[in-house]
């Protein structure tokens, strides 16, 4: 029966039409989970690689400082930024505890969180220096102008 055949075909088509986006969805999901995993694995390997380099640098430094006079060790990457110095296990743990405590306390308090003084620290750059310069000049000359009132 031709009619039935056609009908059945149509029904199949209908069902296909409904299933098709779900198949698309599964495809998207597969690619999505796959790519995300690949990305995160590569990033994890990169991080591991950077850690190896860090460890190597520290070892080499330690050897060098052992050869020369025992001066205060200064690793390359922490010369300018004492805050970024390597943290030991204990330090890390202590930091975690400190944060946990601060979090626990935050529920009720509304402590100020910013460190504006920190943010405005100057660097060597020309614009920043320009700004700094202008300001320190003004401050300097102002200070002088004020103290100069006496002997003017």
């Amino acid at each position, binding site marked *: 029966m031709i009619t039935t055949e056609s009908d059945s075909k149509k029904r199949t088509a209908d069902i296909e039409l*409904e299933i098709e*986006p779900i198949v698309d*969805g599964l495809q998207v999901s597969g690619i*999505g989970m796959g*790519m995300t995993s690949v990305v995160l694995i590569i990033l994890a*390997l990169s*991080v591991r690689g950077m850690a190896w380099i860090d460890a190597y640098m520290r070892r080499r430094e330690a050897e060098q400082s052992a050869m020369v006079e025992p001066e205060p060790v200064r690793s390359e990457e922490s010369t300018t930024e004492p805050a970024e110095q390597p943290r030991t296990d204990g330090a*890390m743990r202590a930091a975690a505890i400190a944060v*946990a405590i601060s979090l626990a306390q935050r529920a009720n308090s509304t402590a100020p969180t910013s460190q504006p003084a*920190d943010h405005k620290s100057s660097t060597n750059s020309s614009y920043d220096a320009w700004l700094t310069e202008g300001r320190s000049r003004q401050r300097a000359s102002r200070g002088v102008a004020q103290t100069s009132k006496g002997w003017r």
Partner: protein
Amino acid sequence: MSGEGVLDQILVGFEAIADDPRIVAMWVIAAALLYVGVAKRKEPLLLVPISMGILFANLPLGEFIRAGGEGEPTGILRTFQTVGLETDIFPLLIFLGVGTATDFSPMLSNPKTLLLGAGAQAGVFFALIGALILGALGWFDFGLLEAASIGIIGGADGPTTIFIATRMRELGEALPHIEVRDIVGATAVAAYSYMALVPIIQPPLIKLLTTENERRIRMEYSAQPVSRRSLILFPIITTIVVSVLVPSASPLIGMLMLGNLIKVSGVVPRLADVSENALMNATIVILGLSVGATMPGSIFLQPETLGIFVLGLFAFATATMTGVLLAKLMNLVSKTKVNPMIGAAGVSAVPMAARVVQDMGQKEDPDNYLLMHAMGPNVAGVIGTATVAGVLIAVVPSLIG
């Protein structure tokens, strides 16, 4: 103008309400979201502007969102949508600020936690397929575009949700043979609502999938310190790796990593300050209003909105569960055991998901400090969700094209 005309003028607001009483229903919804933000103090930064945006979009005559013309300028919130939302600029500026505020060092000191950021992304795709099934069943009018926008709710990341939902809507509007629903507002509200509810949604699911002994697992802090070199290289490497593998993710990842580089480099504190404060805060106000204004009653009060909220919750729940399960799987193959709860922190919702883990850990063992371990999957989840967003942007058009 006749006296009648003048009276018309006076009653015009009431007539608008009579014509479309849904706007009054939207006032109630706006008030409810505002209550959550202000009285319950959950996600107030976004919920206050979003709820006011909803109110503004549902005032009589819709002055805030009118199209403009004939000596009348375009409504301010519609202008904001055009210049900031549809161009991706607002979500990307938020990502810049978020990058400045994100600290990747817990993750860098324990690279394994990076992998855990992948597990929770499965929630995105469970919800995506769920939306497609509900669409196929004819319950809701969801196609692949809507499903992608709904799925990304499971990423638990507001700007990414807004980014994807806007992109999918634009894509559908550009294709003549596709009809697309405007669900930017609904998905954004769902995302922020469930982020606010993370401390309620996650704990029972985590308990369901873990034993008490597992929850008591302590994790040692790595003796591996993170150098300044690594902190600076990480955002650059991540930008390149993600962009080569998933080019469409590059705007989101790039801006996030730029913000982070600005902070960790330490040489441009002025730029870190502005990215994290003035620029981000101004963007939050305007973005929140713009997103809220995508919800006139006629668009939001649809059965599909209910479906979006149901699927959004499903997305958060499955993300939590797949996160925990990935962590348990990892314990099967690895010598050093992780506390499987930290897998649940992979849903992003920074830092609440991590705090949930910390709290649950201390409930079992008051001396167990999991927070910084949980921050690893937590921030990895942000990278993971941005990657997923890139895949959606890349693959969905080729499937519906």
